[in-house]
């Protein structure tokens, strides 16, 4: 809220002596940081950030009250002579508990406009003056004292006024010209012809004050916050009035604000008071709250003398009585946020200043807990992938239905994962797969001129279940573009599916995941993280003895058909070799060239043998011959 310095100084004269920086620091220390300062003609306005629990501070008077308590300086008295009340000129019926007090008056307006000083104050606070004294005075009072009031054109009101719950379906045209259809939970002001205002939110068009208005009926009431909030939300009608009533106005201000409004109209336009009266009364205050000194000391981090606590709370307007080590505290009528002992402890600390809180490390009361295996696994996988040259991405958890459909399993319908109120259609489904997001990110990077794309993401994916979307932490990696070719030793080649297969082995994935071709030369896979082996509990594995005898390596170059299954060939050859001596059998080269017979390729198979003795050549020759025979049984031929 904007606070104008000259008006603030009228409420607390001591504030005039502070420079802007001191004032901002004092306010920040009280919990009201200043977000900006606007220089105005002859004055300044501060943009003060007021938290939602402090409806009482949303005015110049409210901020002045806080400063007065902090600086221990007096507030200026509210300048009003009490208006003498008399008989009700118009009956006012309070038919709902949500409005316990309704102070009003009827005045006959005279000649005159809103004083220039008030107009410039309103302009400074971005509230445009209407030049109608009754309207401007009400606005000025709200900004200055925080109490919303309203002026009706008294001659537009038919008969008695009631504060009552709306009947469902009743309508009201509010001041903004919108026809509102009301519900039974909207509190309204009505005359005998129907609704004339949404209580605490906005007046009605039928009874609004215009330049033709001769007589006004003033309203200065108190409305229960929760109902005002609900009505404001229901009608998307967030006004200065609903903002303050919704956060809790001061019921004791109802009569005072009425009196101030009367005095302004009398001063500004020679208005003649015809009568003033009040329906209802100030509601009973909330029960006092007890504050134990032990609790205060625990919160504050050190003992706070009872007298100091009592003094601080008294400065804030509380009525405090001491009983032993306990204070019994009745909060002032404007503070609805002081409900428990901790609230009071905070007030004592706030006035002392949080800078006085000591700094202490909390003692350990029990053993620290371990990091969860799932968390450690994620850290390990992320680090490994980063070391392998992959870049971790963070993409939105919701995507478009079309993108989602690319990789969602048929038994994972999007309906169960769709948002009711998405930011837009393209962000409407909780994704079943990370691949659509990574594909889009990879393509964007390619468009930006990247030669090689290496991305991964660790994030939840969602599966529709009757109980709601089930989250599964998922790893996806995509790889594409050109590998190598960036230095004199590494030839360039396209990234292939085999590269992703190799990556999956590096990560110890159980089996080969499905490798998707996402675009030309762009591949990816995705696995649920639960599928990965958990980090071992053992720091180092159990020792397994290994042979110290030399190993023997033999290569076989085989001509095989282009359609030959490697798995079948490998299995057949391995079966022909002695399991206890075969260290490794793997294809180390694939050669395809027009010099080979058509329809054939050459595979170079490497065998490594080792045993608990020195292997002799003839023995190994026999094994290799057996392996060759096994390969030949599948149609392979020794390449000359």
């Amino acid at each position, binding site marked *: 809220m904007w606070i104008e310095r000259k008006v603030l100084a009228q409420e607390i004269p001591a504030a005039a002596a502070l420079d802007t920086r001191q004032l901002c620091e004092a306010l920040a220390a009280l919990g009201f940081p200043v977000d900006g300062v606007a220089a105005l003609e002859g004055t300044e306005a501060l943009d003060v950030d007021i938290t939602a629990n402090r409806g009482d501070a949303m005015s110049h008077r409210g901020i002045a009250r806080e400063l007065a308590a902090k600086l221990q300086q007096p507030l200026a008295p509210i300048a009003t002579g009490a208006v003498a009340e008399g008989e009700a000129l118009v009956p006012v019926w309070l038919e709902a508990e949500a409005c316990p007090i309704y102070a009003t008056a009827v005045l006959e307006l005279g000649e005159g406009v809103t004083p220039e000083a008030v107009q410039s104050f309103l302009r400074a606070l971005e509230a445009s003056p209407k030049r109608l004294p009754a309207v401007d005075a009400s606005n000025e009072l709200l900004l200055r004292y925080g109490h919303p009031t309203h002026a009706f054109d008294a001659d537009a009101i038919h008969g008695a006024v009631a504060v009552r719950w709306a009947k469902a379906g009743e309508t009201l045209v509010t001041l903004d010209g919108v026809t509102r259809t009301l519900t039974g939970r909207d509190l309204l002001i009505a005359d005998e012809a129907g609704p004339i205002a949404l209580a605490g939110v906005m007046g009605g068009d039928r009874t609004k004050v215009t330049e033709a208005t001769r007589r006004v009926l003033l309203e200065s009431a108190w409305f229960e916050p929760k109902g005002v909030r609900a009505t404001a939300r229901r009608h998307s009608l967030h006004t200065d009035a609903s903002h303050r009533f919704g956060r809790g106005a001061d019921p004791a201000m109802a009569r005072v604000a009425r009196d101030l409004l009367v005095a302004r109209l009398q001063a500004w336009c020679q208005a003649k008071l015809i009568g003033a009266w009040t329906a209802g009364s100030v509601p009973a205050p909330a029960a006092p709250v007890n504050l134990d000194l032990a609790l205060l000391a625990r919160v504050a981090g050190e003992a706070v003398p009872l007298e100091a606590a009592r003094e601080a709370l008294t400065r804030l307007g509380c009525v405090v009585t001491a009983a032993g080590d306990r204070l019994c505290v009745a909060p002032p009528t404007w503070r609805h946020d002081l409900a428990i002992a901790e609230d009071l402890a905070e007030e004592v600390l706030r006035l002392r200043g949080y800078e006085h809180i000591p700094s202490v490390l909390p003692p350990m009361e029990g053993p620290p807990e371990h990091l969860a295996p799932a968390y450690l696994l994620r850290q390990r996988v992320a680090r490994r992938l980063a070391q392998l040259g992959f870049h971790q991405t963070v993409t939105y958890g919701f995507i478009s239905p079309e993108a989602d459909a690319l990789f969602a399993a048929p038994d994972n319908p999007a309906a169960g994962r769709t948002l009711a109120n998405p930011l837009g259609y393209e962000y409407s489904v909780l994704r079943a797969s990370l691949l659509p997001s990574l594909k889009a990110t990879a393509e964007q990077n390619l468009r930006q001129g990247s030669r090689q794309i290496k991305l991964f993401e660790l994030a939840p994916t969602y599966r529709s279940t009757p109980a709601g*979307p089930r989250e599964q932490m998922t790893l996806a990696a995509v790889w594409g573009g050109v590998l190598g070719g960036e230095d004199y030793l590494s030839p360039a080649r396209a990234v292939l599916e085999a590269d992703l297969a190799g990556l999956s082995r590096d990560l110890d994935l159980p089996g080969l995941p499905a490798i998707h071709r996402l675009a030309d030369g762009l591949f990816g896979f995705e696995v649920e993280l639960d599928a990965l082996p958990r980090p071992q509990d053992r720091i180092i594995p159990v020792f397994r003895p290994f042979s110290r005898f030399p190993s023997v390596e033999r290569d076989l170059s085989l001509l095989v058909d282009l359609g030959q299954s490697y798995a079948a060939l490998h299995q057949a050859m391995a079966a022909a070799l002695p399991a206890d001596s075969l260290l490794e059998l793997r294809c180390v080269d694939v050669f395809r060239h027009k010099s080979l017979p058509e329809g054939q390729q050459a595979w170079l198979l490497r065998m490594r043998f080792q045993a608990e003795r020195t292997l002799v050549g003839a023995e190994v020759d026999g094994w290799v011959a057996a392996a060759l025979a096994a390969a030949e049984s599948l149609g392979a031929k020794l390449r000359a």
Partner: protein
Amino acid sequence: MDQLLPPEIVEAGRTFPAALAACGDLDALLRLKAAFVGRESSHATRLMELLKTAPKEQKRELGAAINGLKQQWEEGLKARQAELEAAKRKLGALAATWDPALPPPQPPRGALHPLNRLMDRLVDVFRPMGFHVEEGPEVETEAHNFDGLNIPEDHPAKASSDTFYLAAHPELLLRTHTSPVQVRTLLRVAPDLAARGGIRFLAPGRVYRKDEIDPTHSPMFHQVEGMLVGHGIGMQHLKGTLEYALRALFGPDTEIRLRPSYFPFVEPGCEVDVSCPLCGAKGCRVCKGSGWVEILGAGLIHPNVLTYAGIDPHEWSGWAFGMGVERMAMMLSQTPDLRLFFENDQRFLKAMGGLD
């Protein structure tokens, strides 16, 4: 003397030094050698034949002349050979010399996402104080996201204009903060809280709010929540922990400042500022000249939050904080646009992320 020798040999002998010098490599030198001193049909063999057939009285003088010539040629060839061999060795050595300035093959180098790095760093900072990591789902219930946190039933944050809800499950939403992890964790540990000796944890994670995408807003962002429950915990413990952690993050000279503020799930509540880590609190664009940067919100756990979880607030107390990761990352890196963190341009990731 020369008149004793055939004129073509005299001529060859005269041009020998130039021919020698013209030999650019050992092959050329071998050819020259063969022509002059080779075993067959060289100038030397021809001279030897000449010597055989020379009159006896000339033999002595001729022999001396021939020997002189041969010696001159052989020495010249030998010296030139040594020269050429040295040059060849030098070239070989040059060829074997590695120029370290030539761009070498480099092992690939990727990067963790800067937001994840920052969260990992926070975990590292809190680990020595006995904090572990708790996590919770991103799809949450209203009970965990709001009710258990003392957030009133009609709080505006619950509105569909602020919070994403699931169409098929109106009671489910995308968590708007990491605080529901507090509720879940407290509910879980409440029965054996005394045996554990309280609890202290961090909850890093992704959260969602219905904000349009612009340079300072994102519908998805990250928070790190911290919580500690024990006996007799007060604001001094919050301040002590944060002072330790923020100094570990920003440097030992970092000052922290607590300012009163309000969050429904804490009482008292505060905002925490750090002395600007970019200018050393001298005043800069990032701290808007104030020397302070707001870094997180915190406070003592509201008794209603403990009570909701089944923990007696008369016996137990604690503190909690919540920190916006993007805000901190943007401040530290002076990244001008929040969207860069979600665009995942490899150049950005490589520059902003790291391996640890």
